[in-house]
């Protein structure tokens, strides 16, 4: 099932190069020629018809996402697409068709997120998308389902420090590791102004440097850090400080309030209503964190 879906996905993705309807037609022809199911691109909505209705009629949801970023969207050991973004997509499918499998994933890079919506290749993008004012002028964001930030991970045993205050107090005698990128130094300086920074080429090298006690803490996205911690329980600890917040939300093509509002309703009820159990299970699975049960009684989000 999954393989077929991905074959179709790649065809749809190829179709993107051809731009809009022509590309989709070429993609469909290629699909038919290969004897595969032709991808049914999420064609532009007819006037006055919400995408919600189009999806219901089509019988499955088309989601744009990626496949290379654990724990958000990646292939597990058996090659199945999994992750937090995938769980959110399946929740939408379940809410639409009472079947979490009725979803087609169109795999794309991060740079494909906005174009695939604008050209109607997908119904929704669920791909660790950071909400920014600039992007919000091109697409419409749903409510966020995660707040990303930078964190510090340390060894649970055998490390010199156990919490953020100690790291901060260590001053210039502290070495933190991270992957070489534009923001690394800026990030670290904001939290630990005096720390020495070792920049490595890849995340696995940073992790090994932490294991070998070459660095005292690993600077990473909180979600990546949570995923590593969930993979090897008891080996690493969170220093307990997060900074550089940014919100992850899904995005839809602008101008369809019915569809946007429906997705928002599903997301909101996942985080604090009927689907809380399934959301909390995903959260626990990918980030290793047990979410507190939403308080029963007054809906506290309006407090």
């Amino acid at each position, binding site marked *: 099932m999954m393989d077929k879906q991905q074959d179709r996905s790649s065809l749809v993705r190829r179709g993107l190069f051809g731009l809009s309807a022509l590309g989709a037609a070429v993609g469909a022809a290629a699909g038919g020629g290969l004897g595969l199911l032709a991808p049914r691109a999420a064609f532009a909505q007819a006037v006055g018809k919400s995408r919600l209705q189009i999806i219901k009629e089509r019988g499955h949801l088309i989601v744009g996402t990626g496949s290379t970023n654990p724990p958000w969207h990646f292939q597990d050991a058996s090659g199945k697409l999994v992750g937090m973004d995938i769980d959110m997509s399946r929740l939408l499918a379940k809410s639409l068709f009472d079947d979490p499998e009725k979803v087609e994933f169109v795999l794309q890079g991060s740079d494909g997120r906005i174009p695939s919506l604008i050209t109607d290749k997908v119904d929704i993008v669920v791909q660790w998308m950071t909400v920014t004012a600039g992007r919000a002028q091109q697409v419409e964001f749903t409510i966020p389902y995660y707040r990303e930030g930078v964190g510090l991970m340390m060894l649970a045993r055998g490390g010199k420090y156990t919490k953020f205050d100690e790291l901060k107090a260590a001053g210039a005698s502290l070495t933190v590791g991270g992957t070489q990128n534009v923001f690394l130094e800026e990030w670290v300086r904001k939290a630990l102004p005096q720390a020495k920074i070792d920049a490595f080429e890849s995340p696995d090298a940073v992790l090994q*440097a932490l294991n070998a006690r070459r660095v005292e803490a690993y600077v990473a996205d909180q979600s990546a850090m949570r995923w590593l911690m969930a993979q090897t329980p008891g080996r690493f600890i969170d220093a307990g400080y997060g900074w550089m917040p940014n919100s992850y939300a899904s995005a839809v093509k602008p101008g369809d309030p019915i569809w946007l509002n429906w997705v928002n309703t599903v997301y909101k009820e996942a985080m604090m209503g009927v689907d809380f159990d399934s959301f909390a299970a995903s959260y626990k699975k990918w980030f290793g964190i047990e979410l507190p049960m939403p308080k029963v009684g007054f809906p506290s989000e309006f407090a």
Partner: protein
Amino acid sequence: MIQYYFDWGVIWRSWDKFAAALGLGLTLAVVSLAIGTVIGLAGAMARVYGSRWVAWPVWLYVEFIRNVPLLLLVFFIYFGLPEFGIYFLDKTQSFVLTLSLYAGAYMTEVFRGGLASVPRQYMEAAKAIGMRPWQRQRYVVLPVMFRITLPAVSNNLISLFKDTSLAAAIAIPELTFVARQINANTFRVMEAWLTASALYLVTCYVIAMLLRLVERRYASIR
């Protein structure tokens, strides 16, 4: 034609970083060559004059180091030793240790060849005028051997300097690291790598020229 717009401003602004990186790379190479020379001399002596029980471990060391990629040796010393509870080496010391062991293996072979090519008659002549064994080494064998091996030693220095680029893998800020950092920060990939290449090229060429002068001054065969 190349569809790329060059912007060298980034390079000029980072010139101090490049200069520091070049100095660091040279220091790493020279220090490692110095330690490697000592190791190589001892290794060659052990292989040529030592008993089987001394020569065999040296052979093992040389073959192990020569047949494992340097990058893996760097990783082994930097990431591996702490797993065995050895923490006192920082990243630069770890790299110098690795490069010294690496240089030592090659120098062992260089010096072994050099020792073998010192003409037997020199040794006999030294014996004939009544030199003791250590005097024969000090005044006859080693000076001749050094002259014979000088070109190979210069080659090793140049090659070690280029090998310091692997230190970037363990976050040591030498030339390759700085170039990569500029790539990550500014995406001026062409400019950064071209500058690093030019610096490697010029530095290696200058080292080669200087060593050629030394060779001309000291080489035994003219």
